[in-house]
């Protein structure tokens, strides 16, 4: 058995983290004559900037340079795929907190104090501050709407014996990476710029900064050793500090550090997209869906950023684990005068999964059935009931057996009875239970991003230096890729050193995102190591007098026939024989294709699966709740590193539960974000953990596709498991109504929202889903929709 693959090696930086010696960008020794930058932010959500007097800023103590839109040497735009994200707002500011100018000064304090001296005169323009407002206006879109349609949804819904429609609102989420956005830019000779950036996307930083500086890409190098958390928030947003620090560095010819304050970070940079979901579903008496219509409105904020892909992924995840034969998914990419929303772990997928899981729950309440029964009934099956709305066959479906295994191991049936019995005898405290299955598509839906490069170097002492395009943000990518390279050379993983991600070593890389970091980079690194190994095999074959194919690399040795030598000896021999021990490797995910016109194809190489069972307890007097127990079973294929994967599963689940429960972003009537620090924005704390928290990796897991050692991506899929906590809370809320009538609950289900939902139930309030008389008549929007806010 391999000592490298499937083994729980600790994170590559484990000893450094435990001793405080891991170097993040803010920890690096500061270069000579370093300047510190601070960004001046807009205080209007939508306004014409009529005057911008920065004279007092320029003359403030310690100030060396002040820049605004007109000072950008090249393009004043850092939109990742589409234009629309200015580095500095020029004539018009489009959200409260947008960057207007930046100051470089000898100290951070001086830069910050100087920025406060700016005098900006605004002429307010009409601002669209809510998603509903944007949805109602057809001109308020950052991108054109899209439709995926299959079968005859209108007819199927109209003909179905039962029909429900309703609205669900889902809030956004701040990434709250513990290490805020930061960059240090160091100017070099002849227009060179070296940028240390806390980014998931060094190649894009290189490209966008080069464009902003009006220099060729080859002048700019971006290096990222590690991030203190990314979660998607450093996929495109890291370009803001990187570009501003680089422009200031180019202008002053001095190194410039830009570290955003926590509060500034939270108002200036994008978040998860809030969604409004309108559904209309027809189903039979057993709860089987006959037709469904979704309208997904995503709040993109003021610019496109990555919103196209995010809303696409939401559309491609409303099916989750279910065969929806007749379906219409209409997606609106709404524009509001708020910060431009961006990638966040799951990239729209969680919002889509949340939509269908909410509907499943509503159908179960309507039919007075166990929601799990309704879910099972609608699961994807064998062909033809295995084709997604976008035309991809689900060939690797394990959700049925995975859910059965979880339900069995976590005593689902018994606990359903227990919860019901408890609720019978408890008036003010109610319990709720929910089992949520998850299917998540793996690959970038932008097909061209599914590629990776690596550079592997073997030295004559037998040690290996590995570089690849992926970035480390705590997810364990570096150790996993090192394990793969070690396996290829047959050496212990300690002999492989992973160096900082650097655009001058591996060029034109994709962001570390879409859960695909290991899938892509480990394959590329494996290819590079394999190329070197092939060359070495020839050297060894000559030495041993055996054919190259008979040479084996194992246990730090190279074996051929009856002869063997240490890898270091062979490396020295190869050097003497003038054989290259450096190689690049490249990988492009096979099989995937997608036609954006027909909205069909195979956007995903494979699917990852998982399920969570959550039990919660809700206090009917306060709306407060706590998790009592959570059981998770998750599919990692054949896990490369079970300890790392378990951490991703648990962490993803907790982050997903936080999104739907306590994490509330709150903007005031002027469009100002008021929850911009941990004092008011509540991410899960250690005390929010359920006292019983069982997480297991699905032992029968094996990737049907030829992904790296048959493993599966694990970054994003488990975040969706947090939906179980939301639906368990909803289940407990329902228990407060004797009639078990439905009741709306929007996300995040803060204690306030939970209490209001209970109060509505007590008052005999309306349902979240409107029961539509059959045949369906034109019913208005649920009367409850506004009341829920």
């Amino acid at each position, binding site marked *: 058995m391999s000592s490298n693959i499937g083994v729980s090696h*600790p*994170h590559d*930086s*484990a*000893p*450094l*983290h*435990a*001793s*405080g*010696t*891991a*170097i*993040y960008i*803010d*920890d690096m*020794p500061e270069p000579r004559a370093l300047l510190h930058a601070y960004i001046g932010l807009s205080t209007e959500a939508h306004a014409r900037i009529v005057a911008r007097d920065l004279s007092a800023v320029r003359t403030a*103590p*310690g*100030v060396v340079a002040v820049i605004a839109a007109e000072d950008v040497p090249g393009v004043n735009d850092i939109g990742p795929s589409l234009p629309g994200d200015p580095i500095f707002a020029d004539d018009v500011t489009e959200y409260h907190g947008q960057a207007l100018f930046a100051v470089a*000064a*000898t*100290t951070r*304090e*001086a830069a910050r104090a100087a920025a406060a001296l700016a005098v900006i005169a605004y002429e307010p323009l009409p601002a669209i501050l809510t998603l509903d407002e944007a949805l109602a206006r057809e001109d308020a879109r950052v991108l054109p709407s899209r439709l995926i349609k299959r079968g005859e949804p209108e007819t199927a819904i109209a003909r179905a014996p039962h029909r429900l429609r309703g609205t669900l609102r889902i809030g956004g989420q701040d*990434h*709250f*990476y*513990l*290490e*805020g956005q930061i960059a240090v830019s160091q100017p070099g000779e002849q227009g060179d710029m070296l940028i240390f950036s806390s980014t998931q996307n060094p190649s894009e930083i290189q490209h966008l900064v080069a464009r902003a500086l009006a220099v060729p890409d080859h002048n700019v190098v971006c290096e990222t050793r*590690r*991030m*203190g*958390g*990314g*979660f998607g928030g450093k996929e495109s947003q890291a370009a803001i500090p990187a570009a501003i620090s680089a422009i200031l560095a180019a202008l002053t010819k001095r190194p410039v550090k830009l570290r955003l*304050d*926590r509060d500034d970070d939270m108002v200036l940079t994008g978040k998860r997209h809030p969604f409004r979901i309108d559904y209309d579903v027809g189903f039979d008496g057993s709860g089987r869906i006959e037709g469904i219509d979704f309208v997904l409105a995503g709040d993109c904020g003021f610019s496109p950023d990555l919103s196209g892909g995010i809303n696409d992924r939401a559309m491609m995840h409303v099916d989750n684990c279910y065969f929806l034969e007749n379906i219409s998914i209409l997606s609106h990419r709404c524009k509001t005068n708020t910060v431009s929303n961006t990638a966040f772990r799951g990239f729209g997928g969680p919002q889509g999964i949340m939509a269908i899981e909410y509907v499943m729950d509503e159908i179960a309440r309507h039919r007075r059935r166990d929601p799990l029964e309704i879910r099972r009934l609608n699961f994807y099956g064998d062909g033809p009931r295995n084709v997604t709305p976008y035309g991809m066959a689900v060939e690797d479906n394990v959700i049925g057996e995975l859910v059965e295994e979880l339900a069995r191991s976590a005593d689902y049936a018994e606990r359903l009875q227990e919860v019901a019995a408890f609720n019978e005898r408890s008036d003010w405290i109610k319990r709720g239970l929910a089992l949520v299955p998850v299917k998540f598509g793996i690959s970038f839906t932008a097909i061209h991003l599914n590629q990776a490069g690596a550079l592997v170097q073997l030295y004559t002492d037998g040690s290996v230096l590995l570089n690849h395009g992926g970035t480390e*943000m*705590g997810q364990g990518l570096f150790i996993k890729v090192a394990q793969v390279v070690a396996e290829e050379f047959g050496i212990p993983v300690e002999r492989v050193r992973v160096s900082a991600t650097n655009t001058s070593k591996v060029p034109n890389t994709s962001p570390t995102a879409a859960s695909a970091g290991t899938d892509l980079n480990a394959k590329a690194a494996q290819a590079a190591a394999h190329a070197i190994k092939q060359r070495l095999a020839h050297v060894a074959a000559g030495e041993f007098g055996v054919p190259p194919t008979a040479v084996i690399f194992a246990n730090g040795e190279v074996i051929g026939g009856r002869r063997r030598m240490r890898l270091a000896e062979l490396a020295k021999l190869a050097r003497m024989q003038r054989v290259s021990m450096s190689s690049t490797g490249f990988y492009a995910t096979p099989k995937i294709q997608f036609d954006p016109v027909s909205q069909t194809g195979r956007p995903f190489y494979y699917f990852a699966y998982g399920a969570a069972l959550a039990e919660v307890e809700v206090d009917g007097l306060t709306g407060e709740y706590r998790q009592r127990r959570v059981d998770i079973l998750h599919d990692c294929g054949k896990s490369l590193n079970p300890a*790392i994967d378990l*951490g*991703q599963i*648990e*962490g993803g*689940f*907790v*982050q997903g539960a936080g999104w739907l429960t306590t994490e509330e972003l709150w903007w005031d009537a002027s469009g100002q974000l008021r929850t911009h*620090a*941990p*004092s008011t924005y509540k*991410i*899960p*704390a*250690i*005390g929010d*953990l359920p*006292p019983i928290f069982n*997480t297991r990796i699905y032992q029968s897991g094996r990737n049907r596709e030829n992904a790296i050692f048959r493993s599966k991506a694990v970054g994003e899929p488990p975040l969706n498991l947090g939906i179980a906590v939301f639906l368990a809370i909803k289940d407990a809320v329902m228990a407060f109504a004797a009639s078990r009538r439905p009741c709306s609950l929007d996300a995040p289900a803060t204690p306030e929202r939970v209490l209001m939902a209970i109060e509505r139930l007590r008052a005999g309030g309306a349902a979240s889903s409107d029961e539509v008389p059959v045949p369906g008549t034109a019913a208005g929007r649920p009367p409850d929709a506004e009341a829920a806010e």
Partner: protein
Amino acid sequence: MPVGRRAVLGTGTAAVFIAGVAPGPDAAAGETRGEATVATVTVELHVNGASHRLTLDPRTTLLDALREHLALTGSKKGCDHGQCGACTVLLDGRRINACLTLAVLHDGQPVTTIEGLADGETLHPLQAAFIEHDGFQCGYCTSGQICSAAGMLEESRAGMPSFVTADLAEPQPPLTDDEIRERMSGNICRCAAYPNIVAAIRKAAEIRA
């Protein structure tokens, strides 16, 4: 500086503090901040067993003194509001958010940071347990978690009850997982490595017990 704010400061240090921010800076005690001259004070910090004499703007937080003046960058600035716990250090063995206290308030007091927890090459039991149990992902909160846990274990051993302690009369409340979670709730971890953090602390507590 309003009088009310000054009044809450300790007597001895308050005198230093007021002198530091008094207008009309003494050139001899001035530090150039940009073009402006800011009055400074001298403070002796005892960090990880070593003594450092620093001349600081009196507004310098303990965290900035450690990071910017002593190059002890293990303690992190997560929120700079005392709400995330990433900057937790030990002051006389008790945990404190280094971003919420001024360096000049701690003249002569022993400060222990993550860099000073190990005994030479031998890791502190908490450091070893965090590695063994994967008590981190991105690592940015880890220094604070470990320092906080070190202080917390001492509080627990001293019999200090917590919000979830069932019997307040109990001289030595047992350190259950529930107690660990409650007592560590001031240190947030966005990666949510929480189950492993609890496991690591439990392990370290068992070793020391």
